């Protein structure tokens, strides 16, 4: 379990993280979402004690990371795939990590196997492709069999097989009751594997809710799209019934405030031939873009207020 409370981290005057509060719970994959430079990596580095918060706290299982008696067995960490000496083999890199906690060689072999790195275990990490480096980072996070995992952009640079593998792995880890905090800028990926998303922008919390709930907030959610031979009469009919209608290209209409059944019935009433009819569903991507856009607008409005 990871509890971040009123966390602020400043570099000089610039705040990378600004009063951030959220909790990543056991049995859940928490997706950590935000544009580049939003403060995701900074937050994760603070969580694992590499950086000190300017104010606020970050706790793992109720303790400061540095106070954990066996940190690697409590938290599996993968921050940046390039956290390896390029001259060291994958096997030795993991072995050295394992030795700090008295973890045996058998476990090292196990994670090498699990991440598919066995064939290249004795190659120097500097010769690895981006995807192999990523797998090595994940192997390091799995090594301590920890109840909490912090993974920064784990699918970066992986091929489709690798992406699928990470998705399954992360779901399995959560199903075993572990806490998984995972950042990504790939919305589609997060929508598929996260239960909950924490969205931040410019270091501030924008949303902290289950994925479905966030998706439902997107503009397109609840819209019915209909394309007919003659859109004008249908639009009038729907407006008269109290729905919102927005004409689209190619004679299509986006209808809000009516169900698919309502629209179909209305079309028959005015004698239009229905060419296409269906409910639109929003995506996490749209919801996210909307959230961050709103945040920017809110900020600029704020700045104008301040300038006055």
């Amino acid at each position, binding site marked *: 379990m990871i509890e971040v409370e009123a966390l602020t981290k400043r570099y000089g005057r610039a705040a990378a993280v600004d009063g951030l509060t959220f909790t990543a719970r056991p049995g859940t994959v928490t997706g950590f979402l935000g544009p580049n430079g939003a403060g995701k990596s900074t937050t994760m580095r603070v969580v694992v004690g590499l950086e000190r918060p300017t104010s606020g706290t970050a706790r793992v299982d109720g303790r400061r990371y540095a106070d954990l008696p066996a940190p690697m067995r409590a938290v599996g960490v993968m921050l940046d795939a390039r956290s390896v000496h390029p001259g060291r083999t994958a096997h030795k*890199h993991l072995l050295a990590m394992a030795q700090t906690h008295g973890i045996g060689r058998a476990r090292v072999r196990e994670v090498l196997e699990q991440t598919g790195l066995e064939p290249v275990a004795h190659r120097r990490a500097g010769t690895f492709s981006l995807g192999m480096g990523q797998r090595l980072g994940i192997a390091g996070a799995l090594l301590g069999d920890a109840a909490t995992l912090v993974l920064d952009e784990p699918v970066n640079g992986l091929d489709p097989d690798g992406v699928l593998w990470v998705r399954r792995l992360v779901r399995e880890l959560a199903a075993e009751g572990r806490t998984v905090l995972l950042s990504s800028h790939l919305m589609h990926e997060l929508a598929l594997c996260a239960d909950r998303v924490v969205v931040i922008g410019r270091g501030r919390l924008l949303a902290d809710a289950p994925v479905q709930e966030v998706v439902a907030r997107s503009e397109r959610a609840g819209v019915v799209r209909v394309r007919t031979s003659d859109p004008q009469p249908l639009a009038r009919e729907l407006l008269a019934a109290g729905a919102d209608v927005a004409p689209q290209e190619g004679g299509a209409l986006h209808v809000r405030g009516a169900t698919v059944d309502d629209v179909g019935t209305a079309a028959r009433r005015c004698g239009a031939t229905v060419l296409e009819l269906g409910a639109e569903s929003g995506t996490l991507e749209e919801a996210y873009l909307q959230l961050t856009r709103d945040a920017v607008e809110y900020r600029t409005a704020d700045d104008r207020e301040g300038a006055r």
Partner: protein
Amino acid sequence: MRTDPAGTRPAGRADPARRGPTPTRVLRAEWTKLVSVRSNAWLALGTVAATAVTASGLGLFVRPEDGRSGSWVVTSGFVVAQVGFLVLGALVGTSEHTTGTARTTFAAVPRRLLVLAGQVGVTAAAALVTALVALGASYLATSPARAGDAPALDPSVPGASRALLGFVVASVAVALLGLGLGALLRRPADTIVGGLVLLVVGDQLLAANPGRLTDTVRALLPSSGARLLQDDAALAALDAATLGPRLGVWGGGAVVGAWVLVVLGAAAYRLRRHDLR
């Protein structure tokens, strides 16, 4: 939504503190890290070779009337060896930061001073082994010269055996100085140049302008550690020539030891206080 987390707790979570990092474990991990980078092995090998070659080369130019001792002939490669030991320490101290391994290391062991202590341990051990091998190689490489015009290695010369031991001690001290500077500065170029100024260039510069002040500063530079390699007669000659403090038999060792402690202390302070990236 998911299965009850309490029912499927991953193994090992409930275990008490004995499963975390201990000094011994960190030491083992650091040793693995040191010996698993091939360039470190090449560096040690290169240091041994360069030391022996230098000693044998210098041995060819020693004449009986030079007033040099057998121990000087054997240890004369130190002038080159110290660069190797400096770089060894500097690499251990900086590679964490230049390669990003620091993220992995300090996430696994958040007690940062434990890691620094582990690095001190493995650097000292690696330097000790390398210095012993270099000394042995130098002994063999200079045996033709010592059989010829250069003086023989005579343990009855006062301070001769101490000088041989001094080669090893001074080598370890230089490696630890490199480690401390490296952990403090975090960049290899800065560390190596800084170390070389302290160990070689500063001494050279000051030696060119003898005086009370310059000789005092000279005595207080870590380059004084090289006095550990001198036998009694040579130390007496050095003390007679200086206008600064006379360091005697152990003063040079004390100076370099103090430098190691101060630099490592500064490195520990920076490690504790500053964020890691």
